[in-house]
Structure formats: structure tokens, C-alpha cells
């Protein structure tokens, strides 16, 4: 039987240098779900995502993948299971879309062992899934912001992992492209990928997530389905924002409407 969760952080303490971000934090990623991590600025959302992706090793506790600590597994083996779209990546100047997407194949390549056909197939499939096949020969730096983000997602898809983590994939995009990216992630999720994203917009989080992880100052406040956790009390507690929560007229998911701001901080 498929385990309910393959990836989880177990009582992790996370820090950058001497700056402590989170202590004894535990969070599980439901398998096959679309998990969204939300919380105020600097609450440790991205830090948790980095720890799940093995970019940051916990001071204490561990991140488990299929019951084994990812710190004890070869980095490339982890990268064949978990893909990551970082908040900022650099496209080498002038690189063609196809060549950038192909760089996502790195964990499947070694000096002695390569299968160009499989790499090629994964790249073609990733470009098709993100709708950038027509752009294959174009230079990434000539694309619009929305197209570029789809190319980055294609690179993460070419990695061919069951789990994909995205750090604020909609930041810097206009609303139409934000929706486009979130719809894309939903379709990937429907096709079997476990998706985990850090998002800023509560309404988008509530609309697209199957599972929410709500964080504040380095701890998990609550988790669960958006319809259960996204309440006026929670938003006011976590963000200090008085609001109304109404059913979204389109999807019925919780819609957060701020009241006249009287910030309590």
C-alpha cells in the first residue's frame, strides 16, 4: 500500500548561521496532495521548503523520505525523488529553452552512465506539459515573465521526480500568469505528482491547495484542508488581520476579505 506520506520534517531545528529560524518543527507532506505553505513574512516557510529539499541541513531532528533521513542518502538519489524550483534561479545569458530544461536531467546523469534517449524524452515531455515546446529554440532571457516561469517549472519537471517543491512560484507574475502557473501545478498534481508550494496569496492558497500548512514565527500553527483551517480567527491570529471569510463565488473555497485595516502589531 502507498504510504500516506513520503516526505516529512521531524522535530527539525533550522538556522542560518547563528540566526535560528525554527525549533522542533514537525510537518508532513501528504502523498499525492497539493500542499501549500502559508504564513507571514519571515515565518520560515521558505526555510522549511529548503530543508525538505535538502538544501539546508537541520541542526537537530531530521527530514524523512520514505522513512529514511535524506541527510544520509546520496544527494543525487534524493534529487531523483524531490524536485525543487527555488525562489531565484539564474538563466545563463542566451541559453535556449531546451538547453535549460535539459539541465534538470543532472541527477539522472553520471560520467559513466548516460541515456540520452531518456533525457531527451523527459525534456520533450516536460516542455509539452508546461506548454513551452514551441519556444524550445528561443533564448530564455527573451521570454516574458510568465513564459520564463513555465520554463523553470519545465526544468524541475525534467528532473522526473514524484515530489516537486516550489518556492513562491507566482511572485513577480501578473495575476493572469499567477493563475496560469497555479492551474499548471494543479494539472501536474492530478497526473500524480505530489506538489508543495510556498504562496503568499491566501485566497490562491485556499483555492488550489488540497492541504494547507499554516506557519507563524518558526512553528506550524495548524494544518488541514483549506475549508477547515482557513477561518477568520486563524487569519487574525497568524497575520494580525481582521477579516471576513466568505465562500469563493467561483469555487466555494474560503475567500479572505480584509476588513478596514486596524493592524494589531
Amino acid at each position, binding site marked *: 500500500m502507498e504510504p500516506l506520506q513520503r516526505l516529512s520534517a521531524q522535530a527539525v531545528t533550522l538556522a*542560518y*548561521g547563528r540566526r535560528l529560524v525554527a525549533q522542533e518543527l514537525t510537518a508532513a507532506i501528504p502523498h499525492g496532495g497539493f500542499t501549500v505553505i502559508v504564513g507571514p513574512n519571515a515565518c520560515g516557510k521558505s526555510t522549511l521548503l*529548503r530543508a525538505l*529539499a*535538502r*538544501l539546508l541541513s537541520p541542526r537537530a531532528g531530521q527530514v524523512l523520505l520514505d522513512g529514511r533521513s535524506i541527510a544520509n542518502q*546520496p*544527494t*543525487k*538519489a*534524493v*534529487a*531523483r525523488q524531490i*524536485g*525543487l*524550483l*527555488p*525562489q*531565484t*534561479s*539564474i*538563466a*545563463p*545569458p*542566451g*541559453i*535556449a529553452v*531546451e*538547453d*535549460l530544461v535539459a*539541465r*534538470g536531467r*543532472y*541527477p539522472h*546523469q553520471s*560520467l559513466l552512465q548516460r541515456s540520452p534517449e531518456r533525457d531527451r524524452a523527459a525534456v520533450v515531455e516536460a516542455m509539452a506539459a508546461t506548454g513551452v515546446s514551441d519556444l*524550445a*529554440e528561443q533564448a530564455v532571457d527573451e521570454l516574458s515573465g510568465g513564459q520564463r516561469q513555465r520554463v523553470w517549472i519545465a*526544468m*524541475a519537471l525534467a*528532473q522526473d521526480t514524484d515530489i516537486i517543491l516550489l518556492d513562491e512560484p507566482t511572485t513577480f507574475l501578473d495575476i493572469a500568469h499567477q493563475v496560469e502557473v497555479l492551474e499548471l501545478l494543479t494539472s501536474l498534481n492530478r497526473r500524480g505528482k505530489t506538489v508543495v508550494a510556498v504562496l503568499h496569496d491566501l485566497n490562491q492558497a485556499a483555492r488550489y491547495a488540497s492541504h494547507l500548512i499554516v506557519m507563524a514565527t518558526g512553528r506550524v500553527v495548524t494544518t488541514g484542508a483549506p475549508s477547515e483551517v482557513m477561518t477568520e480567527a486563524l487569519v487574525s491570529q497568524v497575520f494580525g488581520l481582521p477579516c471576513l471569510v466568505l465562500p469563493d463565488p467561483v469555487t466555494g473555497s474560503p475567500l479572505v476579505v480584509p476588513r478596514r485595516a486596524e493592524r494589531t502589531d
Partner: protein
Amino acid sequence: MSRAARRRAALNLTLALIGLLGAVLALGLGDYPLTPAQVVEALVGSDSGFARTVVVEWRAPRVMVALAFGAALATSGALFQSLTRNPLGSPDVIGLSTGSYTGALVAMAWAGSGRLATTSGAIVGGLATAVLVYVLAHRDGVQGFRLIVVGIGVTAMLHAFNLFLLARLREETAMTAAIWGAGSIGLIGWDRALPALAVLAALTPLTVAAAPALRQLELGDDAAGGHGLRVEPARLAILALGAALTAVVTASAGPIAFIALAAPQIAQRLTRSPGTPLLASALLGGLGLLAADLAAQFVLPMAVPTGAVTVVLGGAYLVDLMIREARSDKTAR
């Protein structure tokens, strides 16, 4: 492979062919001129006449060394520039050549001017400088721009120290040191060329193996880490490789400027390659040093050290680069 990638492959092939033709041409030049046909005959033919001695014993080491050393310097430059994401992040700018010179001078001052002492002094000096710059620039990992600034500072200090050492050396030792310090490949025969070429040959597969990691690092540390690259160890290994390439060349030929700085930039513009292309840089570096050496021998009214030619070209190029960087103002990241 995209069209752009195929185009780059074709360009590399062209550069390699030009290098081969250039080598044949260079082997024919000198006081005993030979046509390309005679050169090929001397190389592959069975007769062991005077032409063969001239080509194989006298001229071949110099041509081989020019191509190989140029390629090694350019590769080293490409590695450093790619890691620092900065055209100024080149081994000669961040002090490795100056450090090699310091090592050689220290060896001459205390261990005599024997070749072994000088060579090992230069290698140790270059690598020690690399370590020093790395450690001084290290703060939660090494960031490109800090490495360059620290490197330029270290270069200035070592340069002052070199002048101090030169002033303290005995006169004839100082002469030897000054000749070495100008950077010349003209005095290298097979006996000196072979060990250096052997080391460079050994470093070549390591460079090939490092290339995928370098391509990953270009995407940023997080993306590279997300793809399963162990970022900091990989970066350290590539820095060590780049430092070793420069140290080996400098130990045999003295500091040769310009090639490491310019070849990767020219290669990148020529191939329109994303990131710094290793192979095209190496090919252009080999061609560049061969051309500079031929100019030093035959174009100028009197023979000068190769390093003098590259320094003049390099100085002009560096000024141009700095002006452009200052204007576009996109260096610091």
C-alpha cells in the same frame, strides 16, 4: 541538442582545425624556414634529416607548449569566471600568477635558483595564494564578487612583497628571476615541457568531469543543490582545479597574463554560449598564446618574452573591460 548547441560544436571543430594549421605553420617559421609540406614530411616521414631535428627537437616543444599552456590558462580562466560569474574573476586578476611568482622568488632567495626549487616554489606559491584568497573570502560559502575583491587585494600585497624580494636578491639571481617573471615559453625544451604537459594531460579528464557541475552552478546554488549537486565541495574542487592549471603553467613559463582573462570572454561572444564555454575557451587560449608567441618572435623588431606581448594586449583589454563594466554597472552580483 538545440540548434545553438550544434552551431557551437561546429565552431569548436573549426577552432581546432585552425589550431592545427597554425601549429604546422609555426613549425615552419624561423631561421631555417620550411613549407607546411616539409613540416608534415618531417613530422610523419621516416627520414631523420636536419629538417626533422629542427621541427621535432627545436620548434615542436615551443609550439606544443604554446598550445597546451594557452589552453590550460584559458580553461583555468573559464573555470574561475564561471564560478565568480564575473569576467574579472580570472586567476591572474585574483593573484594566482603573482603568488606563483612570490613562491618562485622565495625559492630563489632561500633555496638557490635551481629549476626544481623554482618550479616547486611557484606551484606551492600559486596554490597557497588560492587557499589564502579562498579562506579570506569565505563566509558561509564563497561568493564571486568577494573572491575577486579579496583576490585583487592579495595581488597588490604580493606584488609589493615580490618587489621587496627582488631588491634583496643577489644580482644574477635577480636577473634570472626577472626573466622568469616576464613569462616566456621560448626557453622551454622537451626536458622541461614534458613534465608540465604530463600534468596538464592528467588534469584534462578532471576538467571534463567537472564541466557538468560547473553548468549546474551557473543556475544558482539553490537550483544546483536541488539537482543533487553538493554545491560547496563542487565549488572548492573546481577552484582547486583552476588553481592547479594556472600553477603548473606559471611554474614552467612564468606568469603569462591576458590569456586566462580574455580567452573565455572572447570564446563566449564567439560561440554565443550560455555561461563560459570550456572547450572553446581552451581552443582559443591555445590559439591566442601561439599567436602571441609568434608575434613575440617574428613580428616585433626584436625578440621579446611572450609574457610581454600578452601583458600589453591584456592591459588594453582589461582597461576596456573595466570601462564597459563600469558603464553597464552590472558587475557586483
